[in-house]
């Protein structure tokens, strides 16, 4: 008798926890929440938010800045966010593990590469042999680095020493103080280092994979199913914001600096445009699958998910059909 009473108590104690964590269908109220990373690549969201484009499109949207990719996915799981914008590798990893999400658009291309110190006098990737490279494990920086090294004829396991860190800024510091000899990093950190005089961009990964995708837009499956109109409207706004940003890099840079509270507009304006980076919304044929393939090859995911599982092009196609 004591046993069942105790179990009842435990069940009662855990019940509130369960309902919080559970994915029992919840009726959503309030604005549609989009979680975006604190990076350059999310400029279209900052622009749309600042200019009230969502309201104009008739949707109630709240753009939430989240510094951590994994947290965006976790928040989408919990239902705290309905959409998110994260690096493509994070999206693929989550979907590979069964997260009920789909990639519906991208936000940007390029922007990632290798940074070294000017004083080391490196000229190409081959020069990295035997050196230490700082990277963020299992991130897009890692996947593209690995691929670039392979293409340059180096063995990423044996020919270089990877140093895994967790923070872009820490890696820059480590490079600056000479604790590592290279870092796989992203804009605007890299151009910033060059401007300070000590850094030198060895290469952009677009040299190996032109126009590779950087960050993508994710939509929760439940949300996409239940609120198709809203999703369309948000994606349409996203396309408009991308177009506007590409035409007004300087103003966009100022908006980005205002949202991120970091860097200066000059630097950001410089790094938002080709050849360093390109804001875009289009999903190109096979690119997500290619990235998933790389991740599988590198052992980061067990199996690359099927195309249909990764990407839902439907909403975006709808919008592009309506435009010239």
């Amino acid at each position, binding site marked *: 008798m004591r*046993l069942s009473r*105790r*179990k009842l108590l*435990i*069940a009662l104690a*855990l019940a509130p926890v*369960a309902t919080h*964590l*559970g*994915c*029992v269908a919840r009726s959503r109220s309030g604005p549609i929440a989009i979680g975006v990373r604190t990076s350059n690549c999310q400029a279209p969201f900052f622009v749309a938010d600042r200019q009230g484009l969502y309201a104009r499109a008739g949707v109630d949207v709240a753009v939430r800045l989240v510094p951590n*990719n*994994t947290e965006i*996915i*976790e928040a989408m*799981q*919990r239902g705290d966010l309905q959409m998110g914008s994260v690096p493509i590798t*994070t999206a693929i*990893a*989550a979907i*590979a*593990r*069964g*997260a009920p999400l789909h990639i519906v658009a991208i936000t940007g291309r390029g922007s990632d590469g290798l940074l070294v110190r000017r004083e080391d006098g490196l000229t190409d990737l081959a020069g990295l042999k035997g050196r230490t490279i*700082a990277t963020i*494990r*299992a*991130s897009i920086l890692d996947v593209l680095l690995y691929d670039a090294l392979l293409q340059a004829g180096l063995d990423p396991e044996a020919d270089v020493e*990877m*140093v*895994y*860190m*967790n923070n872009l800024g*820490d890696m820059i*510091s*480590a490079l600056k*103080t000479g*604790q*590592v000899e290279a870092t796989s990093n992203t804009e605007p950190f890299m151009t910033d280092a060059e401007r300070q005089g000590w850094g030198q961009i060895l290469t952009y990964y677009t040299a190996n994979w032109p126009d590779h995708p950087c960050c993508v837009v994710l939509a929760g499956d439940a949300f996409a199913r239940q609120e198709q109109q809203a999703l369309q409207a948000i994606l349409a706004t996203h396309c408009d914001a991308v177009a506007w940003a590409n035409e007004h890099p300087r103003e966009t840079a100022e908006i980005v600096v205002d949202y991120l509270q970091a860097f200066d507009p000059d630097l950001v304006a410089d790094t938002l445009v080709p050849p360093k980076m390109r804001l875009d919304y289009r999903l190109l044929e096979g690119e997500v699958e290619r990235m998933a393939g790389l991740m599988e090859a590198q052992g*980061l*995911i067990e199996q690359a998910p099927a195309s249909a599982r990764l990407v839902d092009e439907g909403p975006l196609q709808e919008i592009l059909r309506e435009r010239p």
Partner: protein
Amino acid sequence: MSLERTAAASRRPARFTFRWRRWVLLLALATVWEAAPRLGLLDPLLLPPLTRVLARGWELLAGGRLLGDLAASAWRVLAGFAAAALLAIPLGIALGLYPALEQLSASLVSLLRPLSPPAWIPLAILWFGIGDAPALFIIFVGTFFSLLVGTLSATKAVDAQLVKAALTLGASRWQAVQRVVLPSLVPDLLTQTRIGLGLAWMCVIAAEMVAVRRGIGFMMIEARNLFRTEDVLVGMVTIGLVGLAMDGFLVRLEGRLCRWRAGLRASRLYAPEELQA
């Protein structure tokens, strides 16, 4: 009703009673852990079923990865803790014996103590570079202040009358510290060690955020980035089990060294059978 219960209790063999008591809560939690994700009450991505976690744990163990990571983390925990103990315990005793010193350091300690280990990471990288050194520093900092404050209050709580007794038996100040203060502190220091080691394990994840190549914390961070929740849980369970083992060892040591501590157990307040836990 209670009479029947006591009668029943006396009929049931004593060993079965207490062992059952110890495990029943764990079993209940294990059942919930397995059932809830499978029934959809909890999101399987956020909390995978227990059996899947155990299966993954076995995979990692058999593959050698888990033990290697565990060894790397364990050595950092022990080394970081040892460094903190070697500094904090003598310092704590000194501060306890000399109020002037305590007053001098009080504000500095109060300022630094609330800083959680992750807050020290940028400084750690700056001062120690990358690799083991900053990781050890993080663990050191995470345990140092707790050990210091704990030793300090234990020293202040040493029975002053015992010290007086020693003095009147002819002890010099130094002899009083050596022969009265230090032996008095042994049980409290063992408690502080248990607390400190627990804290050191808690710091492991923060410590291993700083560019290490192996370790349970590192494994868990990577797992989280790849949404391998099973791996994260395997890491947590492993840390929990190792922490339990270390704690158990210390409890046994405390029992052996501190047999003279009467305490609650010696009083007749509780029936002996109830205490066998």
